[in-house]
């Protein structure tokens, strides 16, 4: 295996840690903390200074994870990008992880980020629109947390095997 492919795989794992780590931060830490902060009037610190920065790293880490993963599927001699996404042959197991990751990337850029911009006031929106945007972003984020569980299972099972 070439040096550049090893670096690509390394970057894929690092970017994946950043992406899923921030996803878990949003779901397990920031969301519950924000509910309490709103109650005592201290939410502005989170929504102004923390959330936009976390979302910046989150959405671009998602892109970096997908791109480095796609490059790996295209270049690794034992795998095939097309076979992975058609769930064929030796690429079928990691392909399941790739599909889940791709759905999660879609959720980040199409459902979470555009709606979070409305929620955080980065784009103007009326209160009713903000409330609906918050619900969509929340459910998309929770969906990604749910999908991350089988996604990691299949990503790891690709090279290391499924339980028999």
């Amino acid at each position, binding site marked *: 295996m070439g040096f550049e492919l090893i670096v690509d795989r390394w970057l894929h794992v690092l970017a994946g840690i950043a992406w899923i780590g921030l996803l878990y931060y949003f779901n397990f830490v920031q969301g519950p903390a924000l509910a309490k902060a709103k109650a005592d009037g201290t939410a502005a610190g989170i929504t102004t200074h923390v959330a936009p920065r976390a979302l910046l790293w989150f959405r671009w880490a998602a892109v970096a994870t997908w791109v480095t993963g796609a490059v790996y599927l295209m270049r690794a001699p034992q795998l095939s990008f097309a076979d992975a996404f058609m769930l064929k042959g030796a690429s079928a*197991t990691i392909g399941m992880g790739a599909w889940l990751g791709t759905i999660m990337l879609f959720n980040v850029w199409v459902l979470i980020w555009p709606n979070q911009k409305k929620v955080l006031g980065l784009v103007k929106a009326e209160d009713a629109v903000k409330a609906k945007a918050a619900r969509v972003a929340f459910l998309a984020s929770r969906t990604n947390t749910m999908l991350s569980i089988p996604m990691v299972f299949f990503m790891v099972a690709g090279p290391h095997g*499924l339980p028999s």
Partner: protein
Amino acid sequence: MKNPLDSITGTLISGLVLTVILYLFVRQFLLG
């Protein structure tokens, strides 16, 4: 019926159930 994704526990259980379903699917239909 409540949406399981509204709670962290429901989200984690849903993810585990989905993992089992997809694992059985992959073993049964893709790896044969």
